[in-house]
């Protein structure tokens, strides 16, 4: 297969109707990493946080209750699988759907915690994620309107970049930033991460950073060099 993406040769594609997954060295590594971490999260217990008691000399152990553990683990696995899908999809619309799904389950992972501060942070994150879905899908729609396709392989073969494609890219970036809660929307995430449940928090962070790196790849495919 003689297709090159950003200087890397495509190793293979998996066509599933109009959904095409493709693999380069980069996509394959990111996909495998997402799956490996998902597997680890699926089999791991949560840590016990030891906190000093106020006004006493004793310690207080903060653990994750079994019911809460089950729902958070389920959502974490869905998040991991959605992230893995976003790493290899060859369709821009599928990518936005995977990103949206990770945003929703991330809110669920922290929304299941029964702590007021954490719930408050999850609520703020939820608002950002909900608002970010407009530029996310709007950006993909503009790129479709400007290029006539959502296939990343087709977009990669284009030799031009129009102003509408640049605008679509900016909107797409804003959408992903909001959905994944990266800078400048990261402040609420730091508050959410104070709660126990390290494996579940990992998947939130993992999905954000991996999707962001993948987004860079997609944006570089859309916007050609000077």
């Amino acid at each position: 297969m003689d297709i090159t993406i950003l200087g890397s040769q495509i190793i293979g594609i998996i066509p599933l109707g109009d959904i095409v997954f493709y693999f380069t060295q980069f996509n394959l590594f990111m996909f495998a990493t997402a799956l490996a971490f998902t597997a680890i999260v699926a089999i791991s217990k949560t840590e016990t946080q030891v906190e000093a008691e106020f006004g006493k000399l004793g310690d207080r152990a903060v653990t994750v209750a079994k019911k809460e553990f089950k729902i958070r683990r389920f959502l974490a696995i869905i998040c991991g699988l959605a992230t893995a899908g976003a790493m290899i999809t060859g369709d821009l619309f599928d990518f936005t759907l995977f990103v949206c799904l990770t945003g929703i389950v991330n809110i669920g992972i922290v929304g299941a915690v029964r702590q007021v501060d954490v719930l408050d942070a999850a609520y703020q994150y939820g608002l950002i994620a909900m608002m970010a879905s407009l530029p996310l899908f709007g950006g993909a729609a503009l790129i479709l309107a400007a290029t006539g396709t959502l296939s990343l392989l087709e977009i990669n073969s284009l030799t031009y970049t129009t102003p509408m494609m640049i605008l679509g890219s900016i909107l797409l970036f804003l959408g992903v930033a909001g959905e994944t809660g990266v800078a400048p929307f990261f402040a609420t995430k730091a508050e959410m991460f104070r709660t126990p449940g390290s494996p579940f928090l990992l998947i939130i962070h993992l999905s954000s950073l991996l999707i962001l790196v993948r987004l860079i790849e997609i944006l570089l495919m859309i916007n050609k060099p000077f």
Partner: protein
Amino acid sequence: MNLMTNILINVIIAFFIGSLLFGLQRKIMARIQGRPGPPIIQHILHTFKFFIKESAFPYTAAMPFYIAITAMLSMIWVAAVIVGPVTGGSLLLIFGIYAVHKIVEHNAGSSSGSPYGKLSCVRAVYSAAAEIPLFAVLVIIYFKTGTMNITGLINYQTVHGPLLYAIPLAALMFFVLIMSKAPYSPFAITKGKDIVSGYETEHFGLLRGYLMMSESIAWYMLLWVFLTVFLGPISIPVYLIGMIVMSSIIAFINATTPLLNPNHSIMMQVTFAFIGIVGSFALLMI
């Protein structure tokens, strides 16, 4: 050379050179501060020492996540050596590996249940905002050269000269990023001594050995990527000199600068990023 032999040799070289550079940094810092300092091989000795020490696991840790995260850190940096010096593959992939390193750093801290690790974890989340320069550097390099392949970048510089002169602000941003990974750096908030050893606090014995080994390889790789991407086709002695010079400059900065408060650290890195991004795009368009 056989591929497996090539990988093995490169990983060993990365570990030893990375460890020696860490040792050199500590020596230079000590001399600047008027202390004799440890021998340059101290980091290597420390790493080997941890491999033969008894391993202990906190009863509060999230098992087997707590152990797997350490193995993951080692695997991703060995993968970086394969992608970089061995095969000259995708630069984007190396930055992907760096992103995974951030995740591991974050969760190695929180998985133990230690409050120091947890603080390091929260700081790691904050410091993810300072990774903006990382992605900006990638975009700028691609817009300038049209490739993300390391071999392609070397070939580009063979024809057009080092990228250091063409996109100096991108090089500066990347240098700041490397500096943030150096121990005792003003930006090393995840391993600040105010939180004991940050995410490494509750990792003992074998696990600590793996963490230290991975950090040495990571240091070597970051310097290797910088020199390859911004200086192009250079010989092995020039690589060595470049790594020593960069480590020495960073040691000097670390010795004379206090650890910044997390908010200041992030804002300073974001300011560098803003100047670098705007300036680099201005330079590209001129």
